[in-house]
């Protein structure tokens, strides 16, 4: 690793660096906190000629995703980025892009959804779009963000997949924290990620119908194919992770990552940057002889059902940290995890911790509290099924 390839940058800047290496033809985006720096840096790269792309200053996120689909429909590579209200404003286009099988790549800075208005981080924006047909990955640090921008195109554009891809970064905690990243050489990335080739494009030589209507006679088949492509993407995600690691030197373990799970009695599941803080807590509790483990869910769609089942099969109790709540039920990640658990012959008990919403810090003490709760449950003690962590008001109190 040469010195020139090491940069001290924010998560947003790492996304811009990774995106430049993927050589998108067109960037169409509307700035929104905390994504703004991604768009600023990319516009500077286009301006200074270090990124040969068209930068479209669109008037809204709805236009950003529409333009990205247009780019994809002629066989070109597109990039967009958004956050929170912007993602929600795109919602119609999200389904359009996945239904049209346009392999658009988007960065989303995870941020709370209004009201009350909040520019700070949580996962209620992207988790509310789980059913929009996009692949969703959640990254832990700036290096993973950079690397996943490159992998995203390779996975999304794979002929078995052809599905749009959303790379999620925790707002501020990740987007605005500066750290060292290693930037791979352009030639190596070019080798890993050749130009986008697809037979499904607008072409004078081979005219075809795109973005069409269906009747009840065939709609379901299209939706089934979308579903199958997403299920097939699990194998592609693993292959691409392996290939990226072999070429560039960093592996992310595919659908999930695990830490100290082999002999763990209790396992906490996390998404995104809070995983890093939880690693420190696992180390501290392991030092005290407590058998705790950590499972980082990288992909929420496709969902790592088999991978989770394999890791938790010997655990007594598992917990799920949700930086979100599906009002009237429980955390959305928890619901998904439970669905994977009940398909096991016998499965561990599961508990939900709702924390860190609207940008509230998730401290090491908070995470320790979650692990201690799980350890109590493992001893047969009764604990709350869905617990709000570090909250200043009482429920029904």
């Amino acid at each position, binding site marked *: 690793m040469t*010195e020139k390839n*090491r940069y*001290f940058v924010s998560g947003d800047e790492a996304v811009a660096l990774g995106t430049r290496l993927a050589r998108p033809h067109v960037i169409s985006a509307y700035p929104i906190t905390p994504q703004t720096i991604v768009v600023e840096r990319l516009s500077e790269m286009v301006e200074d000629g270090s990124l040969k792309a068209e930068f479209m200053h669109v008037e809204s996120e709805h236009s950003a995703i529409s333009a990205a689909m247009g780019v994809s429909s002629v066989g070109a590579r597109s990039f967009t980025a958004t956050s929170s209200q912007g993602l929600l404003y795109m919602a119609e286009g999200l389904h359009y892009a996945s239904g049209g099988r346009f392999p658009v790549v988007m960065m989303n800075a995870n941020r709370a959804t209004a009201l009350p208005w909040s*520019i*700070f981080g949580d996962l209620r924006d992207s988790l509310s779009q789980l059913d929009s047909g996009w692949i969703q990955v959640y990254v*832990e*640090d700036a290096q993973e963000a950079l690397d996943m921008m490159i992998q995203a195109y390779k996975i999304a554009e794979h002929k078995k997949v052809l599905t749009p891809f959303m790379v999620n970064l925790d707002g*501020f*905690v*990740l987007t*605005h*924290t*500066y*750290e*060292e990243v290693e930037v791979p050489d352009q030639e190596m990335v070019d080798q890993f990620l050749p130009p986008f080739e697809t037979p499904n494009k607008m072409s004078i030589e081979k005219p075809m119908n795109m973005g069409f209507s269906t009747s009840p006679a065939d709609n379901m088949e299209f939706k089934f194919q979308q579903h199958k492509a997403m299920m097939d993407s699990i194998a592609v995600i693993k292959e691409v992770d392996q290939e990226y690691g072999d070429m560039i030197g960093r592996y992310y373990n595919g659908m999930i990552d695990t830490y100290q799970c082999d002999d763990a009695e209790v396992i906490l599941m996390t998404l995104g*940057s*809070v*995983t*890093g*803080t939880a*690693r*420190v807590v696992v180390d501290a509790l392991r030092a005290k002889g407590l058998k705790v483990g950590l499972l980082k869910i990288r992909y929420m769609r496709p969902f790592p059902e088999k991978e989770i089942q394999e890791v938790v099969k010997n655990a007594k109790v598992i917990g799920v940290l949700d930086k979100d709540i599906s009002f009237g039920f429980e955390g959305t990640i928890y619901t998904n995890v439970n669905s994977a658990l009940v398909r096991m012959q016998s499965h561990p008990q599961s508990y939900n911790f709702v924390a860190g919403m609207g*940008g509230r*810090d*998730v*401290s*090491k003490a908070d995470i320790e509290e979650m692990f201690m709760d799980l350890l109590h449950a493992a001893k047969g003690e009764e604990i709350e099924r869905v617990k709000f962590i570090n909250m200043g008001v009482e429920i029904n109190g």
Partner: protein
Amino acid sequence: MIEVRWHGRGGQGSFTVARLLGKAAALFENRPALAFPSFGPERRGAPVLGFTKIDDKKITDRSEVVACDYAVVLDETLINEKITNGIKENGTIVINTAHPEKYDYLNGVNQISIDATSIALEILGRPITNTAMLGALVAASGIVSLEAAIKGIENELKPSLVEKNVEVLKRAYNEVKGENHE
């Protein structure tokens, strides 16, 4: 892990210097670092905090800084009796002031002061004290070497600003070093 908390007002460069210190450690001493501002809207003149974490192994802890080893105050109008909250026992506060005796009431932490504003006005012609305060912190703490801090400035600042800021850094560094030797 060493944690530094920077106090300044929007526009004074307190986050720039938090990042500069992180860069100096990460890129020029191969020691992992994180740098981040107090998150939220940015306004000129409003009190802001910057944070730098430096360690000998990869830093994965992304929770807020609860107890810092050093607090560095670029603007003394931000000082009140609560400013020492969240500084570790045996921690240090580095204050930009021409009148250190005003802060004798701050108990329980080591105090180092430097008239960074005068240094900045003399050399830069502007009261931008972030690099002076970095010099003072480096001298007081040895968190990074003076050489790494200089490389950080060369890497971070616009070329036209580098030479004079390196001068500011060295002046502040030597001033604090000199006092420590007495």
